[in-house]
């Protein structure tokens, strides 16, 4: 089995790699395509004579619009520069956007302006125009100055568009310096248009920082002096010379810089002008214009020309640069969100299918992906799971590729005889390209991420949102209305949040499905998908209802509480969904309330030894938490336009409370494991805990549970102790043994996870215990034996004491109830007793039981020293000592002279994660075994799928063989009875039928045996202790209790005569199975146990009811026991133990 996090870890890595490859390919394409575009432009304009349009009156009118805000220091010079532009049909409109300085006064004075009456023809909505000014001096007749109330750049541009009379509007920043032929060059693409209408045209913008400027003209071009400026110069080359030219050539350009761009005025007006509600108004306008043309199916072009036409000052401090990039990110997000309908919409051609997706994936997501990469890297670093050689090579590649792209841009810039033609300038830019990744780039990424956050902070809406000031606006309302408004508001928010909840939960379901189909090839993928989806959707909508109601109530009290609690709860739900399915895939068990009955230490040990607490897993869990929490935190701040969606979610959730997953036809599964895989693990966990909680409180249990009835039983000694009765177990074993002169020793060997399926030739996996099988042929062998639980926790009480479970297993009862078991009864009869275990005996509170039983030799992990070998560690944790060590330890500790003795050995190595020493040897054994004719073709498939587990089984079998070989050399061997069984089947090996989980072999071997015998009757671990004591009592006159509280009645020749029934506890919180006669009841379904050790479902309701009645009666007795905590009166055990005379 792959380790827990492996695939998720790889998915994260691969996503980043794929994204990196995407970036690499896109930039390679841009570089190549832009070069072609520039060369073509140069070829087409070798001898272009711009004077044709400079002087012609038959050319279109261009209206140059320059918004100005507090530009008093430079505005006069800047306007003078604009007035000197070469173009005949040009009008220059300066829009003073409510400047607080003396800009207006300076303009009036410098250009002899006078306020005139002006009728504004454009219909774009703008702030109020305070006045329109024209010059008295004919020399400035092209100039119009507008004074207006402050409304932002977009508003000022809209005023200019309203006022303008040109065919085209050229929008610029007033502080930009234009080349004198800028309009001529910009006009040419419009004049050259033939089949396609040119709707917008932009030129290359260059940096004016450090350039020599005289009379509003650039007279000497220099590379900026600061590194920040130089890196922006480089960035502008990449953006304008490569990026924009490539997109222009590909007809995919959606950004014409706000600093300088020309637009078709009619289309701008038809589109509604600049959007005042976005900070990225330049990009938004182009997208809207393109959208307009696409919707009308008119051919069009957005063109960028590679001539440097405009010079602008870029920020040379980090603070201003960060603010600018923050604004750009917000602008991008606003535009992408506003036009989200276009994304991947073929109706919008290249705009929808290429341009917007490019902007989304690379311009918008770029900084976020990079930032998340840093975070993930830090987490990996923290947990020490960075693959350093790989990281270093990848890091070097990314940096080098960036530098290569920059140098390429410098070369293209030089080749096209752009701006920086000096050798020194090129070298300075190369140096900037090398420094950029460590100095400039982090600033830009940080600003981008901050922009992303600010977008949500500053209430730029996703749809229509109600946010700030809500509480203030409703405070004055009557309380009824106020509550109604608050509920409506809550529903709007819950509607938006539910969508996110649904999305993230479905994502986890998709992950679950992928995980199963990837790991378990035998699953029917489509059936699994259908059922997983249905079962989980029912559960999810129930949660949406439940959490939604909680949210609404909390929202009435305090919104912040509602937000925090909802986000926390839903994050937990989604996270646990991942944990549940991974746990299930690993353990083949659904996690239920049993998790509550493991102590923190035990949980830690389980997680560590199974490799779950690896650094990689923890790192991925941190990423998963962040990846879940962040979208929820964003979603909780949103609200849907309508409250209907929220209400619909709640109603649907409410309806789902009455929907049982059973209404959906489950389909045919090949195994119980596959069927469980299709269930909602979250629903199971929740229901399991709810049942557990109800059972914990008898009053609640009576309220919600079935009425408890215990029928009268003449053998019962006292109704207060429902299991207490006279001991009447017949001696079953005596007839199979020769009588020894001395009391025989007793050794129980309980093998962890030894199931019948792989320890018998009849098992569906095959026989992987050749020694145990050979021993079975020389022993008393019960082929159809069942354990009392699906885990180890019930092994000790059942095997040694045939004890009922109590609420969460007998061992979990804090104060061990007085009782009889093999340890204390045999010890009372002079046996030396011992418990041998390579792990921590405190696990499952076994130690408390053993201490109660006053076991003489309690051997656990701490008792071992060198040269005993531990099992290999998994992430620094090992379950304890290998089985070989445990067997040897028993032989070392137990002296042959101290007879009689009773020892119980519990093995360990066949526990998850199935790590053993000398793996290669046992793998070789496994290969030989699988290749041999001992394993059938049908069994081979199972074998290969569960190799790791079966290799560990071969190991324990080999260890057992060595143990017996060593034991046989001891004098006490001949007088010893060995009982070998498994505590339960491994859940990690898929089960064919429900009973397979509990179907374990039972072998009793002894040199004292008269002959081997094979029994086909059903028997149970509950039968062992009564039969063993009956054997000793009847054959060796041991004193045994006359009254007992055993569940089992001893081995029988015919199970049908047995009327007590066998209860089985699957996990610590669930008594879910019951066997009566040949019938097995599981989850209200009845199966008949067949001679071939399988089972088939029976549809006999009366039989189901009858067996359910008996099962309920057992549960009622068990409930009475755990509510009293007493199996029998104290005096019974006290009297037995204090009686010093052993009756013959």
């Amino acid at each position, binding site marked *: 089995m792959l380790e827990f996090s492996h695939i998720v870890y790889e998915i994260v890595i691969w996503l980043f790699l794929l994204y990196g490859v995407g970036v690499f390919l896109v930039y390679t394409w841009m570089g190549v395509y832009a070069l072609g575009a520039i060369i073509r432009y140069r070829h087409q304009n070798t*001898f272009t004579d711009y004077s044709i349009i400079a002087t012609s009156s038959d050319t279109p009118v261009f209206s140059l619009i320059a918004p100005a805000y507090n530009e008093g220091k430079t505005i006069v010079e800047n306007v003078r520069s604009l007035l000197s532009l070469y173009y005949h049909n040009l009008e220059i409109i300066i829009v003073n956007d409510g400047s607080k300085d003396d800009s207006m006064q300076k303009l009036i004075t410098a250009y002899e302006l006078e*306020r005139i009456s002006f009728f504004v*023809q454009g219909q774009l909505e703008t702030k109020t125009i305070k006045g329109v000014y024209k010059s008295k001096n004919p020399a400035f007749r092209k100039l119009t100055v507008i004074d207006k109330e402050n409304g932002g750049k977009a508003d000022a541009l809209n005023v200019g568009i309203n006022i303008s009379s040109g065919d085209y509007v050229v929008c610029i920043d007033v502080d930009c310096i234009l080349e004198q032929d800028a309009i001529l060059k910009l006009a040419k693409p419009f004049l050259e248009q033939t089949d396609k209408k040119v709707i917008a045209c932009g030129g290359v913008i260059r940096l004016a920082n450090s350039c020599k400027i005289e009379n509003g003209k650039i007279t000497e071009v220099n590379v900026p002096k600061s590194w920040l400026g130089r890196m922006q110069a480089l960035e502008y080359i990449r953006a304008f010379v490569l990026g924009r030219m490539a997109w222009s050539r590909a007809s995919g350009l959606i950004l014409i810089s706000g600093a300088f761009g020309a637009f078709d005025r009619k289309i701008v007006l038809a589109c509604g002008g600049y959007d005042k509600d976005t900070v990225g108004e330049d990009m938004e306008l182009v997208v809207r214009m393109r959208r307009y043309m696409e919707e009308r199916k008119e051919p069009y072009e957005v063109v960028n020309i590679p001539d440097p036409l405009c010079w602008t000052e870029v920020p040379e401090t980090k603070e201003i640069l960060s603010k600018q990039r923050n604004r750009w990110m917000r602008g991008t997000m606003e535009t992408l969100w506003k036009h989200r309908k276009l994304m991947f919409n073929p109706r919008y051609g290249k705009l929808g299918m290429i341009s917007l997706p490019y902007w989304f994936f690379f311009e918008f997501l770029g900084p976020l992906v990079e930032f998340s990469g840093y975070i993930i890297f830090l987490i990996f670093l923290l947990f020490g799971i960075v693959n350093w050689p790989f990281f270093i090579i990848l890091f070097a590649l990314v940096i080098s590729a960036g530098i290569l792209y920059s140098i390429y841009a410098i070369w293209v810039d030089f080749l096209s005889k752009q701006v920086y033609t000096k050798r020194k300038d090129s070298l300075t830019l190369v140096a900037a390209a090398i420094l950029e990744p460590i100095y400039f780039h982090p600033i830009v990424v940080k600003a981008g991420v901050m922009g992303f956050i600010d977008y949500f902070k500053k209430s730029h809406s996703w749809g229509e949102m109600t946010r700030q000031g809500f509480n203030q606006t409703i405070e004055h309302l009557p309380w009824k209305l106020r509550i109604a408004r608050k509920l409506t508001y809550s529903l709007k928010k819950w509607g938006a949040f539910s969508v996110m909840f649904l999305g993230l939960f479905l994502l986890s379901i998709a992950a679950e499905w992928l995980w199963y189909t990837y790991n378990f090839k035998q699953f029917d993928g489509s059936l699994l998908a259908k059922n997983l989806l249905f079962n989980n959707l029912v559960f999810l909508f129930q949660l949406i209802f439940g959490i939604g109601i909680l949210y609404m109530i909390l929202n009435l009290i305090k919104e912040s509480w509602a937000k925090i609690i909802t986000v926390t709860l839903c994050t937990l739900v989604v996270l646990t969904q991942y944990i549940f399915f991974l746990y299930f895939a690993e353990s083949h068990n659904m996690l239920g309330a049993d998790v509550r009955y493991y102590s923190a230490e035990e949980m830690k040990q389980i997680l560590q030894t199974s490799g779950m607490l690896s650094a990689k897993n923890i790192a991925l869990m941190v990423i998963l938490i962040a990846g879940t929490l962040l979208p929820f935190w964003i979603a909780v701040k949103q609200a849907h336009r309508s409250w209907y969606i929220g209400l619909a979610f709640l109603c649907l959730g409410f309806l789902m409370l009455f929907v049982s997953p059973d209404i959906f036809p489950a389909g045919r599964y090949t195994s119980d494991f596959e069927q469980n895989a299709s269930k909602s693990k979250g629903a199971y966990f929740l229901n399991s805990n709810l049942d557990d909680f109800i059972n914990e409180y008898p009053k609640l249990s009576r309220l919600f549970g079935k009425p408890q009835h215990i029928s009268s039983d003449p053998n019962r000694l006292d109704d207060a102790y429902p299991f207490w009765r006279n001991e009447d177990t017949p001696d079953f074993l005596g007839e199979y043994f020769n009588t020894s002169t001395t009391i025989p020793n007793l050794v129980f060997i309980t093998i962890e996870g030894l199931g019948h399926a792989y320890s018998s030739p009849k098992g569906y996996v095959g026989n992987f215990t050749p020694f145990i099988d050979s021993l079975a042929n020389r022993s008393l062998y019960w082929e159809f034996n069942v354990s009392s639980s699906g885990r180890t926790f019930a092994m000790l009480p059942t095997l040694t004491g045939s004890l009922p479970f109590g609420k969460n297993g007998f061992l979990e009862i804090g104060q061990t109830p007085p009782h009889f078991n093999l340890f204390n009864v045999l010890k009372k009869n002079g046996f030396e007793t011992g418990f041998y275990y390579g792990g921590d005996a405190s696990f499952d509170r076994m130690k408390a039981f053993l201490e109660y039983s006053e076991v003489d030799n309690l051997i656990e992990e701490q008792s071992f020293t060198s040269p005993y070998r531990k099992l290999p560690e998994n992430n620094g944790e090992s379950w304890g000592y290998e089985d070989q060590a445990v067997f040897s330890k028993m032989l070392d500790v137990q002296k042959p002279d101290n007879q009689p003795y009773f020892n119980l050995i519990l093995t360990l190595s066949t526990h998850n994660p199935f790590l053993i020493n000398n793996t290669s040897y046992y793998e070789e054994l496994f290969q030989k075994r699988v290749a041999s004719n001992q394993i059938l073709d049908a069994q081979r498939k199972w074998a290969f799928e569960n190799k790791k587990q079966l290799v560990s089984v071969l190991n324990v079998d080999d260890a057992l063989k060595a143990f017996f070989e060593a034991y046989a050399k001891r004098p006490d061997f001949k007088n010893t009875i060995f009982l070998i069984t498994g505590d339960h089947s491994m859940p990690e090996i898929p089960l064919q039928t429900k009973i397979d989980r509990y179907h374990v072999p039972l072998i009793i071997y002894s040199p004292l045996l008269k002959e081997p015998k094979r029994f086909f009757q059903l028997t149970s671990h509950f039968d062992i202790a009564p039969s063993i004591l009956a054997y000793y009592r009847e054959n060796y006159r041991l004193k045994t209790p006359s009254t007992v509280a055993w569940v089992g009645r001893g081995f029988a020749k015919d199970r049908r005569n047995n009327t007590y029934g066998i209860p089985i506890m699957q996990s610590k919180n669930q008594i879910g199975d019951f066997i009566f006669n040949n019938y097995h009841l599981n989850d209200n379904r009845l199966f008949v146990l067949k001679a071939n050790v399988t089972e088939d479902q029976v549809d006999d309701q009366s039989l189901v009811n009858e067996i359910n009645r008996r099962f309920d009666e057992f549960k009622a007795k068990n409930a009475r026991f755990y509510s009293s905590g007493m199996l029998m009166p104290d005096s019974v055990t006290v009297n037995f133990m204090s009686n010093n005379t052993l009756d013959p």
Partner: protein
Amino acid sequence: MFLYVSIHDLFLIFLGILFLVLVLIGVLLSYVLYQHTVSRHMREWSVMIENKIADAIVYSHEERSSDEMFDLYSKKSPFRYLFLEKLVASKKKFSGSAQQTIQQLFIDYNLQIEALQKLKKKKAHLIAVGIQELTVMEMAVYLPQISVFLKYPSSQVYQEAQYAMVVFKGFDGLSFLNEFSYTISDWQQLRLLRSLKTIPEDSIAPAIGWLKSRNTSVVVFTLRLLRKFQVFSVYEHVRELLTHTSIDIRLQAVRTLQSLENIDTVTHLTDDYGNQPAELQLQIMKTLKRSDDKRCCDFFRFQLLNHPRADVKLAAAEALVSLGAKDDLLAISGDKTSPDRLVQIIKHALGERLC
């Protein structure tokens, strides 16, 4: 492992790419530096060529000193291409005898060889440059070689060939319009119009034919041509175009009628006014305004008061101002029943100073 690629494989792949990237960085850097060296040489050559041209313009043939170095370089192909480029650029800047001197330099150094070589290239831009060079240097002798490019698939080439035809042959060079099916861009139309200095007396027949062309751009160009050279005899043919399906042609027709104006033009335009869309109506208003015909006052007044569109009203008000009907406008604006919008339009047209 996804895609059956191990981390180790990826490591090797990335190492390979990294090596490639580093090599490319090295190659590119070297190339940039090499290009700077080439560029420096080119700048030196440019200075040498510019000096040569300046000398040729300033000094007479006899006064010029011999320049062995220049003559030596002039045998090198790259130098000759640069020389040719500089000569073409210079000829555009100068006029009169300087142009002739430059042309003589072109002939003296047999640079037509390079220009003609370009005509034989496959790359469209090189052919276009070759045609441009021969055209600028007025090498009419190569007209047959150039004319074959009139039907060349590349627009860049056939546009240069068209331009060359017009430069060399004048109005006759426009004969390609007879069967031209592509759109002639505004840019090309401006170039052709600019290069055409006169049109012959017998130009009416082909022009009338072009006015009937199915190619809208040919009609528009012809209207511009007729407007530029004021070919009054085609007035009626132009007037017929006021009913053409293309709005662009009708707009150009209105403008051309203004240029070909006769006594009936005002009547023709006002009569046709009601049948035209708003865009045309606006153009007619501007045309009528330029006619400066007082007979239009009532028409303008009517439009000012009754037309629903503000831009047409404004054009009407401005026309009334230009016809000296300010008092009329002041009376309308002073009338308290006049809508505010109308008053604002009149004030705008009057250019009223507010302070």
